[in-house]
């Protein structure tokens, strides 16, 4: 019995009922607003599918040099041909993708690396994994006597493995996500922890955070995808709670990626689907579901420069090019990799796709057909 004579058990039951009622009302309101999806709207307004000939999209480079599974890759923003890749052979390799040459091979103290990222100025790379830390290497640093690049700085603080790290493009900050259910913002100059997002059962993710992506239109916003089957939008100025939570997946979310407009983002999940969400309204705009039987987990995700193509890497070695507007598979890269596609990314000028696989290779893909200029919209 509480001080005012009301039984606490009754209050709890009433609060639970209120939560269920409010959730129902929210769902009802969402259903009212969900009057269409992107594909239906596009077809209704005479938009047609893109047609790719068989040879229009093909591999033009194979980058070999890793001896273990590749887990992550990132294109440089400044030098458009550079790629950094992380492999469980314990090395980061920086590539000139155009010449297929390696410019740096960095031996790591912990070989269980899961993520890597290029800094916006192209002078440093960050990586992390089962060591729970984010290590930063300066590409212009003097090598040690054994030829290795020394670690410039280590960001300590996460209590679980580091699943993803990303530099904020126009600011000296780094965002990391971890198996400790949090995301963290770090100052890229002082390397101090600025803020922690989540870790609190009421507002944060309830399971491992697997991926983060930063909005290109407002770099204070980033989205995180988690094994709690939700994606959350965070404002770096408000660490106490997410701005929005996005539901819909029935499995762990492995990858999140903003569209180039910075207002919508895609998610890839263990349930075998990719979904497209609008950040401002929270609407689920489209689901991309593999039509073939034996559906496989989505491991990685990227968008082309306009957002028209959604690239999705799958556990079963497949990589589909989805028409994001009409939700149709445009192209299947086939059996070009002999193991799971674990990561992929589009060059900052949009001219190529790079896929990384557990078969230890990276492949560069580009459009080799004839281009036409579109008529007025």
């Amino acid at each position, binding site marked *: 019995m509480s001080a005012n004579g009301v039984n*606490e058990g009754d209050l709890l039951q009433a609060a639970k009922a209120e*939560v269920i009622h409010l959730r129902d009302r929210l769902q009802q309101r969402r259903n009212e607003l969900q009057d269409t999806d992107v594909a239906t709207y596009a077809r209704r307004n005479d938009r047609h599918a893109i047609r790719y000939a068989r040879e229009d999209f093909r591999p033009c480079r194979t980058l070999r040099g890793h001896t273990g599974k590749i887990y992550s890759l990132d294109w440089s923003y400044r030098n458009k041909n550079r790629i950094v890749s992380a492999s469980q052979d314990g090395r980061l390799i920086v590539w000139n993708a155009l010449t297929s040459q390696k410019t740096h091979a960095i031996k790591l103290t912990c070989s269980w690396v899961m993520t890597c990222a290029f800094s916006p100025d192209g002078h440093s790379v960050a990586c992390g994994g089962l060591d729970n830390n984010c290590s930063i290497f300066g590409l212009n640093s003097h090598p040690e006597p054994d030829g290795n690049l020394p670690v410039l700085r280590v960001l300590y603080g996460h209590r679980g493995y580091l699943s993803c790290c990303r530099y904020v493009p126009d600011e000296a900050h780094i965002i990391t996500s971890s198996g400790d259910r949090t995301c963290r913002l770090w100052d890229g100059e002082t390397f101090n922890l600025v803020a922690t997002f989540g870790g609190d059962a009421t507002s944060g993710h309830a399971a491992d955070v697997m991926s983060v992506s930063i909005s290109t239109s407002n770099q204070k916003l980033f989205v995180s995808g988690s094994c709690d089957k939700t994606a959350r939008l965070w404002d770096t100025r408000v660490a106490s709670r997410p701005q929005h939570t996005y539901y819909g997946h029935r499995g762990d979310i492995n990858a999140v990626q903003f569209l180039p407009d910075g207002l919508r983002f895609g998610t890839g999940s263990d349930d075998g689907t990719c979904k497209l969400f609008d950040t401002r309204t929270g609407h689920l705009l489209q689901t991309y579901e593999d039509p073939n039987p034996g559906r496989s987990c989505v491991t990685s995700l990227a968008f082309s420069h306009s957002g028209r193509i959604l690239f999705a890497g799958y556990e079963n070695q497949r990589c589909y090019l989805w028409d994001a507007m009409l939700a149709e598979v445009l192209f299947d890269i086939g059996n070009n990799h002999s193991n799971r596609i674990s990561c992929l990314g589009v060059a900052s000028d949009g001219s190529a796709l790079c896929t990384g696989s557990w078969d230890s290779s990276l492949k560069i893909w580009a459009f080799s057909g004839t281009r036409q200029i579109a008529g007025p919209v």
Partner: protein
Amino acid sequence: MEGGSGSGSGGSRKRASNQNVASSSQVYRSAPEASTTSSTKPYQLPEPRTPPGRRNPVGRHRLRSELNRLNQEIQLLKEELKAMENLPPASRTSRELIEFIETCADPLLPITRGPIMAEWDKWFRQPTEPNRCCW
């Protein structure tokens, strides 16, 4: 980062950690089972019980904490419901997305907005940069 840095997964670590949890819990459970083999009665862990007629203080704290959490959630749901009153329908968001897609040039599309850059085809030309390799 802009225009699509890739994002990858670390599914194996996720699964490996789950397996570790599973195996450690199996080890934990096997201990009482082992002890049953040496005695006739199955071993049972003592269970703390509140004597009948007495209130459990731990339970009351738990109730309060749960109540606080629910009240917080109610507040958030009410805020979300209020914010949804003025939201546009999905059709308007879809239109905005299509407009954005159709106004951007895209090197990976057969039909795209101009101008078409010669640089886009660099991947099918002989590289002109000097071959410098660290190895």
